[in-house]
């Protein structure tokens, strides 16, 4: 591994700071989503150029949006649907894939290579 060597500040300038910036940019939208989800409506609709725009935190966290989600919508049902779909589709894909993979990898039969290639090509 070609490590960044030399003065300590070099490691900061070339490693820690840029990586830190990258991780912050990468994760910030998730943090922002989380904060927004507990932000009261009144506070949410403050334009960004007002002095009282406080984007990074909220002083009056509220769970009303979550309450709304569970009480007024069929969110639990949707969650269940998602779960069912993901389990079933994974299961079916695994079943078909396992059998086909075994045949393609271990058994010799005419057009085996061709079939393998064409299955692979359909992936994207």
């Amino acid at each position: 591994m070609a490590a960044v060597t030399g003065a300590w500040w070099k490691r900061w300038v070339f490693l820690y700071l840029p990586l830190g910036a990258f991780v912050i940019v990468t994760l910030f939208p998730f943090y922002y989503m989380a904060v927004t989800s507990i932000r009261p409506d009144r506070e949410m609709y403050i334009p960004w150029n007002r002095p009282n725009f406080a984007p990074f935190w909220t002083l009056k966290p509220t769970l009303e949006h979550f309450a709304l989600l569970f009480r007024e919508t069929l969110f639990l049902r949707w969650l269940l649907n998602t779960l069912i779909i993901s389990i079933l589709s994974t299961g079916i894909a695994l079943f078909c894939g396992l059998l086909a993979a075994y045949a393609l990898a271990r058994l010799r039969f005419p057009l085996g290579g061709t079939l393998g290639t064409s299955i692979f090509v359909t992936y994207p």
Partner: protein
Amino acid sequence: MAVLGQNASSPPLSRSGFSFTVGIRRLRQATATERREWRFALVLLMPAVLMIGTFVAYPFVRGIWLSLTDTVVGSEGDFVGLQNFAKLWNDSIFRRAAQNTVFYTAAATCLKLTLGMLVALMLNNLLGFKRILRASMLLPWIVPTVLSTLAWKWMLDPTFSIVNWLLFQLGLIRFRVDWLGGPVMALWSVILVNVWRGTPFFAITLLAGLQTISPEVYEAASIDGANAWQRFWTVTWPLLMPVTMVVMLFSVIQTFADFQLVYILTGGGPANSTHLFATYAYQIGVATGKLGEGAAASLAMFPVLFMVVLFQLWYIRRGEGGVTKRGA
């Protein structure tokens, strides 16, 4: 998406012409044991082939047929030949969408490769925290695009944008930037979010590739007096090429056929200026209900994607040859 699964029905490349005749000859001379093995293979392959046939090949063929008719929702259309394609050719929005798709794919992929490579190199040099960083970086890639794009939509909102606020506080802008309001800015915003989503994947995959490069190669290069840039350009880059290639190809295919990101962030707007092939095909085919024209628009992606796939296969085959030549 039907168009992506195109080639199940078309004859696969290479090897096939040869193995087809061989296959026929061998079918006649097969022993009983061989025949049993073939039958077993057939049974094992059946589910996968049925699935692909039903959900990839059939929609694809049906899509081709639809694109040659003037079908609209609710009425079976008549065969009109290439009229749909001719209409698209003269459609200024479609042309714009084609340009956008090419630009979007090129810009996003280049940026992702550059940033991803930088991050991978930095991570490779890092001593601690590697795992936690890797895990946290994967988040944009794991979280469904629809969700993260919604977050971005809120962050780029013209009135409530935190990005504007940040840039303003940092003194980088004096006035409001309308991220999704103008044609040029909107396209760049879409690219930005795509880069945000895709860079971690590049970084993680390239990092995995970097870790397979033996440190001794670098030692040898250092002893020969190579500086950091030379070590990267003459050792890392060529040795990493196979990994880079695979990542690039996957990224190009996905970016080229991207739908969700644009659909959520701009919906193709403002004034149809940020449409990609996929979103415009959706707008014509599903939102407007002109199934025939929509199918034609989405089939327009096919030649490019098909070429990418051809290249991919060629590269993998070539790689296999290279490995056996170099091996041992």
